[in-house]
């Protein structure tokens, strides 16, 4: 084994080689400071490697390499994109760059929206306390240098301040037309006290993406976050969600992932106020050269909060699923209710599921449970369905969708849940 000091030196060398001389984007004073601090963090932490405990199941090389690997674009054959049927405020990015022409006007009652480039030139007080701030807080207890890299270099993203209850969801659409290239996107969201919003994300983004969403959810506010990562298979990327919740605030974040040769989604959640609630869920289907990693950290830092993590993965033909989930309960966080489940349905013997569930509890009156399983399709359920005349393939499809259902149930809006379920069904049918 390589000694720690030597490993660290190599990580730092790699960071220096990648971004030591790369100039930071032009920004206003406040954002320049945030960028410089993030840049210093990257150089200080170094780049992640598979030797890091935190990356033991997922090799980050494709995410840290100087150049993105190019990948083919998926022919959608005219299939409508997800969420297409819903009335929403559309914000389109093409190859990771905001496309004002293709987007709706960034105006709606109860919300202020500005592209990052605009925000970087202005002095948005509310954003100053969030941009790079939550990301920096998220460097503890584990270093996440790719998120700092994003803060330092992101030129794209949306700054969204929700003051009321906007009537339509805000839909971030990531179109991709280039076979190669990187996209670095950084969103900042502030949901003011008592406000409520739904934020949708979908699309393949780019050959390689690095996305960060920092969300500050004030007292009694609610953020619904529904994300569909699909389409092009030959993509690599990482997405970080950093969210801070005030008293009685609620967060529901759901991610569907289909395809993608290397995807790592991290969620870092702080329940800072009493009676908050955070649900983080994911449904993943992987076939072939597919590596998908969900890494979640939830910190109960106040009393009587509730958190749920529900992750379901259906894997086959060599697909690999990873789940790392940690619940940290501070001493003050009495009466915490924490639940975590991660399950994989392995459709053949080549598929692999690697899980590392963790609980760290310093309060004495809490209720926390976690479970992790991997298994195959239940033979007696399959037989039961077949005796009722349901053909084997259809019965298997029904059981796979049933397996994923618990994760989809975490979506509050039935319409979106049904849409995503239909996508999963279509994907499974296409793959046979």
């Amino acid at each position, binding site marked *: 084994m390589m000694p720690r000091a030597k490993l660290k030196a190599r990580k730092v060398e790699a960071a220096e080689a990648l971004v030591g001389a790369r100039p930071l984007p032009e920004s206003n004073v406040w954002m320049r400071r945030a960028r410089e601090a993030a840049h210093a963090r990257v150089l200080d932490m170094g780049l992640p490697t598979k030797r890091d405990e935190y990356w033991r199941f997922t090799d980050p090389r494709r995410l840290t390499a100087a150049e993105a690997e190019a990948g083919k674009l998926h022919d959608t054959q005219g299939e409508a994109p997800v969420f297409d049927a819903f009335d929403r405020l559309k914000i389109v990015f093409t190859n990771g760059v905001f496309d004002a022409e293709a987007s709706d006007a960034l105006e709606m009652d109860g919300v202020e929206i500005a592209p990052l480039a605009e925000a970087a030139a202005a002095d948005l007080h509310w954003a100053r306390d969030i941009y790079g701030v939550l990301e920096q807080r998220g460097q503890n207890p584990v270093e996440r240098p790719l998120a700092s890299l994003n803060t330092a270099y992101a030129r794209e993203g949306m700054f969204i301040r929700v003051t009321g209850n906007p009537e339509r969801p805000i839909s971030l659409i990531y179109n991709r037309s280039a076979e190669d290239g990187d996209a670095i996107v950084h969103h900042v969201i502030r949901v003011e006290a008592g406000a409520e919003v739904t934020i949708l994300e979908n699309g393949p983004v780019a050959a390689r993406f690095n996305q960060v969403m920092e969300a500050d959810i004030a007292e009694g506010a609610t953020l619904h976050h529904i994300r569909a990562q699909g389409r092009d298979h030959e993509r690599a990327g990482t997405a970080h969600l950093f969210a801070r919740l005030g008293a009685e605030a609620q967060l529901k974040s759901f991610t569907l992932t289909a395809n993608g040769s290397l995807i790592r989604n991290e969620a870092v959640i702080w329940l800072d106020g009493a009676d908050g609630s955070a649900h983080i869920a994911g449904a993943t289907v992987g076939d072939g050269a597919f590596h998908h990693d969900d890494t979640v950290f939830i910190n109960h830092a106040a009393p009587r909060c509730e958190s749920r993590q529900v992750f379901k993965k259906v894997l086959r033909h060599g697909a690999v699923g990873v789940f790392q989930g940690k619940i940290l309960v501070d001493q003050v966080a009495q009466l915490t209710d924490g639940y975590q489940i991660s399950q994989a349905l392995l459709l053949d013997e080549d598929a692999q599921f690697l899980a590392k569930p963790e609980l760290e509890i310093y309060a004495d009156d809490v209720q926390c449970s976690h479970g992790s399983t991997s298994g195959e399709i239940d*033979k*007696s*359920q399959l*037989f*039961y*369905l*077949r*005796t*009722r*005349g*349901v*053909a*084997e393939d*259809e*019965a298997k499809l*029904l*059981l796979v*969708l*049933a*397996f*994923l*259902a*618990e994760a989809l149930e975490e979506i509050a809006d039935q319409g979106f849940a049904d849409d995503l379920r239909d996508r999963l069904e279509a994907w499974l049918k296409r793959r046979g």
Partner: protein
Amino acid sequence: MLEIKNLHCELEEDSEVKILNGLSLTVNPGEVHAIMGPNGSGKSTLSYVLSGRDGYEVTEGSATLEGADLLDMEPEERAAAGLFLAFQYPVEIPGVGNMTFLRTAVNAQRKARGMEELSAGEFLKLVRAKAKELQIDPDMLKRPVNVGFSGGEKKRNEILQMAMLEPKMCILDETDSGLDVDAMKLVSDGVNALRDAERSFLVITHYQRLLNHIKPDVVHIMSEGRIIKTGGPELALEVEENGYGDLLAEAQA
């Protein structure tokens, strides 16, 4: 209707374990046959072999439904041909709504039989009517298949499926197990409502009491994988009175 000739079967993973040893049986259209026998006589295995469960190897003999070779069909093909097994232990399927399940099953069978699928409205009307007859709470239709159902609810759900699928040949595997008197009455009424000249039943049971409600035309006694005695309803009463001991001794003599 159902014709089983000299059926032999063993466990797939252990050919030393012979479960059926030359079982023969003929059920004519409209008839109700009961199979009784002590534990381990192979009653449930017979129902599984007929419905196509994995794990059994048929080494000799045949089983046909209206002349078609059952043993050559997949489980879903047997269902489409008109066979139905009411399970002793109905399987719980979390994540699949009972209504979705019923509708998928009904339409799959209609498709296999070359009939048009029922529209959502037609299906709903039909299932509500049948459920009402079986005193099935509408809430049970919304819940996942058999999840959290009581023993009686599970068995009623089996009969509901039978009523919806309208099979020709129904096998009831210990449908009376886990039922109290009222539930047994309800389930039996459900079965009796389905009796007609074209539909046959094979009722597998330990006890005679179910046969007070579902009156059989023929009663078979099964032991060690064979039918050792066949008679009328009075045979079931004899078992109730004296147990299987005498019959087994008689068969061995």
